[in-house]
């Protein structure tokens, strides 16, 4: 479904997506990495738990919220992947611990 329109990046980094190891092109956003990995939704909403996926991809809509390295409610479209990054869906409201 999603296909890069430029040449695939040569270098990749390894990240963990929902507990699964994945090689993703270096320099892409977390949201792009999740979409490439084939996730059909990347969070559930805070109140009604409806599945959502990245929408605007430019930092405005907040549909792309994920948990990055344990930090909740991170905008996936505004964060670049790095080697060893741990990415999880944001499920409902964040926790506080």
């Amino acid at each position, binding site marked *: 479904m999603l296909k890069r329109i430029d040449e695939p990046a040569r270098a990749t980094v390894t990240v963990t997506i929902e507990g699964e190891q994945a090689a993703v092109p270096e320099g892409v956003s977390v949201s792009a990495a999740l979409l490439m990995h084939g996730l059909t939704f990347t969070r559930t909403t805070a109140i009604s738990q409806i599945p959502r996926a990245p929408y605007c991809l430019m930092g405005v809509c907040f549909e792309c919220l994920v948990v990055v390295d344990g930090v909740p409610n991170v905008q996936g479209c505004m964060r670049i992947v790095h080697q060893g990054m741990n990415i999880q869906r944001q499920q409902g409201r964040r926790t*506080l611990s």
Partner: protein
Amino acid sequence: MQDTRTKAFDAMQNADVLVIGGGMFGAAVGYGLARRGLRVTMLDEGDNAFRAARGNFGLVWYQGKGKGMQRYADWTLESIRLWPDFAAELDSETGVNVGYHKPGGLTIATSEKALNARKERIELLRRQAGNKGYDCEFIDRDQVQALFPEIELGPNVIGGSFSPHDGHANPLKLLRALHAGFAWHGGRYLPDQQAVRIERRGRDFVVTTPKDVFGAAKVVIAAGHGVTRLADMVDIRVPLRPERGQLLVTERTRQVLPVPMSGVRQNDEGTVMLGVSNEEVGFDDSTTLDQTQRIARLAIEKFPALRHLRLVRTWGALRILTPDGYPVYAESKTQPGAYALACHSAVTLSAVNANAISYWIAEGVEPEDFDTFRPERFDA
């Protein structure tokens, strides 16, 4: 011109009551009047108005109120007793759940000095209440912690005062519900119609806005800071001053604060609201970094884990304060049928405003011992 006259004529024919002001007070009274079957027109300002009704913290609160005016403490409690039915009726009529919960409320102390000041105040209120009693107790740190199993208290928390009468609601949903209920009962809401002049013509009152002229047998002035100017036109003197309060709201989180506090409360949809400031800055409702920092620090002192939450919005609003801080409810003595209403705690009082006050205005039956709320108390 033809158009304006026609509309004015229709309004003269159709309204029993004109309510000036569509904020928390005006909307509650307007809703109550419409619900009694009266034909009500509510005149509101535009989007540039100072709207305390959109800046509320959302406490439905009893403890600590009424020093020097027992009638106000009693009135507050009357409203709180009406709140469960009031919220349920709004929900059933409008489908808007205002999120009212009454788990009791807490005022946390983080120093001996603050705790002692609190004890003095509650003791004074208890003495003032006499055999009516004052339902508020002091609990120690462990008892406070037991109320919050999901979040740890900061090291400075030493105890607090707890009253079972206290609760909270979502103030934006309350305002929305009052307006929806008003419309559902046939009320006519007209925004961008700032009242400029009120005159008596025969048995009617005529209210002029920059666009139109409206008439009705009764006029209710609930225009927030506009009350002083407008009430003067019907011979009621209501001195008011603005006091700015700033508030902060965080991103949504799982429920960690089941009990509302003065200064910290969590809405049932997860946002945490933080307050509060009391600033004498005139008609300036902007926000400042120093108050934002102060308010955040106060909350973190009570619950350190709150530091992890992002703030999503801050805002300022202007409290509508009389010289003693207590409400004004007054019918004009020289122009009966004209009422001036002003108060600061319009969320807490919305239930009694929608009920007893609409009954007073509709049927002419004044609530008991109501002269207490007349603004003549400010005449020196």
